[in-house]
């Protein structure tokens, strides 16, 4: 149940009590919005799920104390018995339906936590000190299987976290690139998010894919920043397509949040000339399948998605009257530029590469500020202003050596922001006049 329906549900009772509408009319309104009465009990799922996770972690730590007085058989009986009890209770509650279903999911989540506790407990009992990331892999697969059969978003989130820990441990501690892992995470959990239309799970999946892919790329001696930049660009394109084509209702803000966050951070890092040294160096002539997969597949995917955006725009296939701004073209251009600079290698002057990303950020900031002021869009105005301020603050340290130049830049920036405030206020006023006249 979204916020509007929740508001309407509370207001209906007040309106009936105040005599504004009859009870019959209130029921007729309720019948018009069936989701109002039978929404997913997210509050219960979240709090009970959080409780299950914390109880599971507590049990892991409790067994970590490793009581000598507790026999091996007793420890095994306690953990396997708890696991069976949690799952049995979960299955029984899931069959009931209603709000008990949410509680059932939480019991099954507790069962999955106990499964993880059991893996570590058995390793402790038998002093197993083999490749420890395997424990996270087995635990994550157990949670993933449960996420699909229930089906449950919260189990999917647990699986996303555990599988990401597995990939990171394999790459950081054992220098082992699990090349296909990000793709498997994306497929197994992304499909579940799509099936359940679960936006929070989608957020977990996107984060898991980005973190695990970056981890693997680092192990392959690939270009982590290029990979993240390209994947972020792909996510931004996906957000536009999701918004317009409505193939996963409500997912566009999640794609956009992840995409823009990572894209802006990557561009910001690339805008430092000293950082470009680390961006441009590294392997550029890898021929292994894994290297090609991480160097070129995201690039092709991002360009394909942006091609889709351009095609939809050219064909005027937009569902909403407001088309995406032309400044969005900077996103694929930044990706192409980054790929070009890396292919050129370290002999390229890093100032030139940094300059391009400075221009990209500056253009984005000015475009958002202009659009915000013209159409009285507060979010665009704020984002543009923050981006400009961040850019000027960064260049204060590494570009303008003269205090006079620094002062001038600050004066100009301050003037621009001041003028932006005036323009924005006038746009708001104009909009209100138009609303009043209509």
């Amino acid at each position, binding site marked *: 149940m979204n916020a509007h329906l929740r508001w309407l549900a509370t207001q209906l009772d007040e309106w009936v009590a105040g005599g504004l509408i009859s009870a019959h009319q209130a029921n007729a309104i309720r019948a018009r919005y069936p989701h109002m009465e039978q929404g997913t009990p997210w509050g219960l799922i979240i709090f009970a799920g959080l409780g299950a996770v914390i109880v599971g972690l507590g049990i*892991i730590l409790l*067994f*970590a*104390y*490793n*009581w*000598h007085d507790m026999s091996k058989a007793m420890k*095994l009986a306690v*953990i*396997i018995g708890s*696991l*069976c009890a949690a*799952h*049995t209770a*979960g*299955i029984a509650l*899931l*069959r009931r339906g209603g709000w008990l279903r949410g509680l059932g999911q939480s019991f*099954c989540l507790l*069962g*999955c936590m106990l*499964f993880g506790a*059991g*893996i*570590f*407990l*058995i*390793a*402790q*009992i*038998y*002093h*197993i*000190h*083999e*490749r420890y990331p395997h*424990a996270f892999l*087995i635990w994550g697969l*157990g949670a993933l*299987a*449960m996420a699909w*059969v*229930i089906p449950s978003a919260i189990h999917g989130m647990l699986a996303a976290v555990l599988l990401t820990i597995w990939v990171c441990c394999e790459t950081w501690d*054992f*220098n*082992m690139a699990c090349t296909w892992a990000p793709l498997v995470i994306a497929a197994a959990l992304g499909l579940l998010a799509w099936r359940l239309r679960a936006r929070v799970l989608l957020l977990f999946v996107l984060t898991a894919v980005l973190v695990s892919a970056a981890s693997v790329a680092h192990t392959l001696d690939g270009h982590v920043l290029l990979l993240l930049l390209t994947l972020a660009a792909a996510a931004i394109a996906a957000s536009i397509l999701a918004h317009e084509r409505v193939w996963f209702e409500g997912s566009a803000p999640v794609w956009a949040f992840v995409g823009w966050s990572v894209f802006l951070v990557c561009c910001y890092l690339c805008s430092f000339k000293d950082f470009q040294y680390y961006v441009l160096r590294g392997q550029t002539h890898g021929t292994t399948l894994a290297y090609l997969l991480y160097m070129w597949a995201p690039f092709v995917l991002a360009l394909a998605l942006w091609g889709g955006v351009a095609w939809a725009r050219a064909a005027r296939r937009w569902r909403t009257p407001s088309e995406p701004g032309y400044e969005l073209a900077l996103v694929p251009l930044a990706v192409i530029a980054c790929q070009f600079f890396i292919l050129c290698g370290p002999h390229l002057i890093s100032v030139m590469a940094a300059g391009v990303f400075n221009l990209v950020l500056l253009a984005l900031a000015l475009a958002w500020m202009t659009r915000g002021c013209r159409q009285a869009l507060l979010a665009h105005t704020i984002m543009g202003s923050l981006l400009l301020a961040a850019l000027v603050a960064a260049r204060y340290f590494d570009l303008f050596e003269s205090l006079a130049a620094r002062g001038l830049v600050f004066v100009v920036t301050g003037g621009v922001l001041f003028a932006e405030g005036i323009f924005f206020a006038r746009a708001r006023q104009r909009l209100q006049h138009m609303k009043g006249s209509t």
Partner: protein
Amino acid sequence: MKSVAIAAVALLQVAVLAYMAGEREWIVRRGATVYVRTAPIDPRDPMRGDYLALNYAISTVSRADCAGGLATAMAHTNRVPRGTVVYAVLNTNEGVARLVALTDQRPPGGLFLRGHVDHHNPPSDINVRYGIEAYFTQQHTARTLEAARVRDGIQIPLDIELAVSTRGTAVMKNHRWAPLGIGLDIIADATHTHAASARRRAVALIRIMNASTTEVALVNLPGGRSFALHSVSLGDDNPWRWVSADAAVPAPQAGDVVVLAPGQVHTNQILFSDPYWFVINTATNRRDAAAKALNHDDLQWGNMFRFEYRAPAPDACTGLPHHQLIWHGRLPTRAFSSSEWMD
């Protein structure tokens, strides 16, 4: 239908745990028992609690002990990839298992451990993990065990009891302290005021302690002949080898048997100036070099060595007084370098 699927996944989770526990329990009950020597340190795992991190004597393997494809790779100073499956063939004739060879081919039979190459930087030794490098204990117990390892500067080896399957999978069953501990001190001659001269007249004091609760006898051959000297590689290959490695060791006599009461310490003195303990550089371009004392300036700080007490075989001790008390096994000291630095 959905409930059945959920129950199936739940049962699968139980089955995974049952398999993990069942496989190890089977090895504990049916596997061959062997003791391996180790040195413990005390870390903590956030998921499994306190444990003793164990560094086994068979975990660091020199080129000489490698066989099969490993020997070929080591001979060509090729890096053996991390994660390569290896098998440590063991000999248990002396009570505590000794490494016979490390190979990349599974032995057809006998006692062996299955492990993985942890790291190898040619030309140094190969480090192997057998999956038994952690001994989980109740919280704070690990520190107590670690503290018991050193008594009066003498290190008491910890022997881990393993159950080993026919596939080479090892499961820890228990631990015991070795009955004898060994300590090493390098002492410069204080009568010489000149630092370099004093260093040249250094002696090694090797102390052997009875760490058990009953009497234990050791065989102390004259001139320190109960001891051997081993080269230790630290990072780079150590080209210096002991000149007397192949020298014949005299048979033990009745007067060589030393009975130690519980807690009693027997001290041996080894003179670095004794040519019996000299070492020679075996590097290809230095074959004509003369034998040098252990503390000669030609030896670098990274060229490390360790003494090892080697008890005579049980057959050689038959007829000696207190022969039933004589401990049979090997007891290495800490490694030391020419600059008197110890590991």
